[in-house]
């Protein structure tokens, strides 16, 4: 049964901190990474085609060669030799919730996944440690040809599409962690939306790390064909352990002509997870890509969702919310690369730091020569709640074209005493008043979320705020 093994270390305000002691794994747990581990993943368990196996081995060589990023957050707490790179909880991905192993089902029942699916999702996927345990999509969407499954199954059933796009948006040698992911990836979602099909309600994936020192390396690939539309939402949780856990995903998105993709993340890892994720979208003409990226959990997050605008009139948007409480460092941001004329981008970042937390906005806007009439606006607002908190803004801009309009603005403030005074004179406690100001601060982001997520988001902010004021 699921037990709270470390009650003493589970903070009250993290309700996903339990751990399934009776989780069963098919493979033997082995720490550290070498070619044998990759062979085990690719050949023994997944029985992958040769090209993918070779991709993995090649990526592993890139991984060994590349250095860890020496900028950004402190990553010295990760011991790559202590990590379990592959943990296989169940034999296959189920389409019927009742067939999911009991201990996994309990976990996701607790997280409210099946309930959520019935209520307002077009499809849902759930990943437990390394493997996807459940993927389902509504029949009507399936009939229209929408594919939503875990990436491993997609590699078996739609090998041609996977092979065509895998690693084209984020090559294995892009950075050390992308190379690591390519070498040991497992699970993740594969979404393919046929031309002209609009998926009106969101698809959701849920990621859960259960084992101590487990690394989760899911690989997500979304291809939106011409004129199609899709909204994908992901959420993440993990138990609270005393040792560090690594989550290093790669998300590749291809937005074809006139298509529209929105990708929403509510990242709520426990405060011992290093969350180092590479996310990038390539947008063709008249396409629209929107990243909505909320980072509330984890010990360290380094994540900069990117949009490469390669077709005329393509549009990219990143809405980023980061909340760093004690001992957290949220190094989040965005990257907009304008590689076609008349492209536009908008980055809005809202960060909140509390206690000894640190938020950093790190972003790049790059405009190549000749990309006339491109426009980019970057807006960063930071709210610092305590004397010991820290907020940084590192906005890089490389503009090599004259006929453009680029703007960046940032402000940093604390919660105004006048605001607090006004709210408290209306009968709120200081904590309630502060929480209200914080909720108001992130309102522009929350209102872009589907209703249920907006409620969840506000609830998470409230949890993060607990204890903010004595």
């Amino acid at each position, binding site marked *: 049964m699921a037990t709270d093994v470390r009650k003493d270390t589970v903070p009250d305000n993290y309700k996903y901190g339990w751990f399934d002691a009776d989780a069963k794994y098919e493979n033997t747990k082995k720490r550290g990474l070498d070619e044998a581990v990759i062979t085990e993943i690719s050949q023994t368990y997944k029985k992958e085609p040769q090209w993918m196996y070779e991709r993995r081995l090649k990526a592993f060589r890139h991984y060994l060669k590349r250095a860890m990023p020496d900028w950004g957050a402190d990553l010295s707490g990760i011991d790559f030799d202590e990590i379990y790179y592959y943990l296989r909880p169940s034999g296959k991905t189920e389409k019927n919730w009742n067939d999911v192993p009991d201990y996994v089902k309990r976990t996701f029942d607790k997280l409210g996944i099946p309930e959520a699916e019935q209520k307002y999702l077009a499809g849902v996927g759930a990943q437990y440690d390394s493997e996807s345990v459940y993927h389902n999509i509504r029949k009507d969407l399936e009939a229209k040809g929408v594919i939503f499954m875990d990436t491993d199954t997609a590699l078996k059933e739609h090998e041609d599409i996977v092979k065509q796009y895998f690693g084209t948006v984020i090559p294995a040698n892009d950075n050390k962690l992308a190379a690591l992911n390519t070498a040991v990836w497992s699970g993740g979602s594969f979404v393919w939306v046929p031309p002209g099909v609009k998926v009106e309600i969101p698809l959701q994936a849920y990621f859960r790390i259960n084992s101590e020192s487990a690394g989760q390396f899911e690989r997500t690939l979304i291809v939106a064909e011409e004129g199609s539309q899709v909204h994908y939402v992901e959420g993440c949780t993990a138990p609270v352990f005393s040792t560090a856990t690594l989550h290093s995903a790669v998300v590749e998105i291809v937005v074809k002509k006139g298509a529209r993709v929105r990708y929403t993340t509510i990242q709520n890892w426990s405060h011992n997870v290093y969350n180092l994720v590479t996310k990038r979208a390539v947008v063709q003409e008249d396409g629209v890509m929107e990243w909505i990226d909320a980072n509330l959990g984890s010990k360290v997050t380094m994540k900069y969702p990117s949009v490469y605008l390669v077709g005329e009139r393509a549009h990219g948007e990143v809405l980023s919310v980061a909340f760093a409480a004690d001992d957290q460092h949220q190094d989040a941001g965005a990257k907009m690369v304008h590689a076609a004329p008349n492209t536009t981008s908008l980055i809005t970042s809202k960060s909140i730091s509390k206690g000894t937390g640190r938020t950093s906005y790190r972003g790049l806007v790059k405009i190549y020569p000749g990309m006339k009439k491109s426009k980019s606006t970057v807006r960063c607002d930071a709210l610092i709640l305590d*004397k010991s908190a820290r907020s940084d803004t590192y906005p890089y801009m490389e*503009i090599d074209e004259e006929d*453009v309009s680029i703007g960046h603005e940032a402000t940093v403030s604390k919660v105004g005493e006048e605001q607090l005074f006004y709210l408290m004179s209306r009968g709120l406690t200081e904590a309630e008043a502060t929480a209200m100001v914080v909720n108001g601060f992130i309102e522009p982001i929350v209102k872009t979320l589907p209703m249920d997520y907006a409620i969840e988001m506000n609830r998470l902010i409230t949890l993060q705020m607990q204890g903010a004021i004595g």
Partner: protein
Amino acid sequence: MTVTAPATTLFPLARETIDALSSSREEPAWLHDARLAALDRYQRTAPPTGHEEEWRRFPLKDVPRADLATIVETKHPPSEFGSVPLSASRHGLIFDRMLNAAREHPDIVRRWIPGEEGIGSHGAFRALAAAAFAHGSTFLYVPAGLHVELPLEVHKRWSAGTEPMVFRTIVVAEANASVTLVEELSSEPGAPRLAVPSLEIHAGPGARVRYVGIHRFAEDVWEIGQQHSVSARDSVLASFNVVIGSARTKLGVSSEVRGDGAEVKLYGLVAAHDRQLIDVNTFQRLDGKASTSDSLYLSALYDSAKAVNYGVIRVEPTSSGTGSYQECRNVLLSDKAGADPIPVLEILTNDVARCGHGATAGALDPDEMFYVMTRGLSRLDAEQLLVRGFFHRVVSAIPEPQVRAKVLAALEPRIGRIAELEAA
């Protein structure tokens, strides 16, 4: 035997060069010693590798080779002239060549010679200037309570040559003193050449200091300059850098606010054309109570010119109620021009009155161009007028009309008679 290899220096500088430089100028022993201490720092300080955030966009590998030994026997010392005789000393004011000041006022000069810290990755160049500073070095000292009404001006002009131009300018304003220094740097074109100017400003408690640096070196010069200011409580400091000349300019401008209630303003005007690269790093450190530090850099970029502005505001955890803003605006006047504005904030406390930054890049507003041209101006005149208008926020922050005129005259090669008219 183990020997710790000294850090490889960008330009070799021998102890013999320092000895010869000191003895040929008949420098006092303490000054010679200070140079040797700086030489030691220079040899131990690794030069930037190009991986530092500040240096990533600057082609260090193409810096002209400079033979520092040629400084000793320089055939072409710069002409130096100023609005007042350079050896002004009245009411305790010292405004002189560094060497004269060191001989005549050793007690005062000695205090300020060791130099200050600045941007970390610029350390090697700071040490180089402190070790090998030669002709063109200036010392300005304003004793406590003295108000220097008229701006002090010094124009340093190097004739053609290949010797590196390495010089220091030290400005000290004691408590409640006030002074404006205008420093104009220029050279005759010739061969690729290195300039390493170093500026230090000390604003004492309640002092008011204004510095205007006009950089118009010939366009074969690589200028790698350092500026550092230290602000004591209640002081007011404004520094202006107007950059028109040079092939490549790298300027490290750092400001340190140490006391309560100090005010710092760092201004910059860049008007670059052809293939010029003007790369400015600013660093604004804030500590103390209720101090402010703002920077405003405006760049107009013609042809294939490029402006880089990587600037950091750092608000220390021990500070309270500080205000700071960093603003960087770029007008691109050609489709080959480029700008990399990178304003960084590092805020280690919530007790800030205000903090923020803004950066923009883009062409002149076509509507404004149209409007001005309907008034009968040619395209060129209209463009010059709008660039002049774009620069206005910095130009108008200079209160003295004669200094404003000097800045506009320096900008003439870019904004033409628009500047002339106003300067007249």
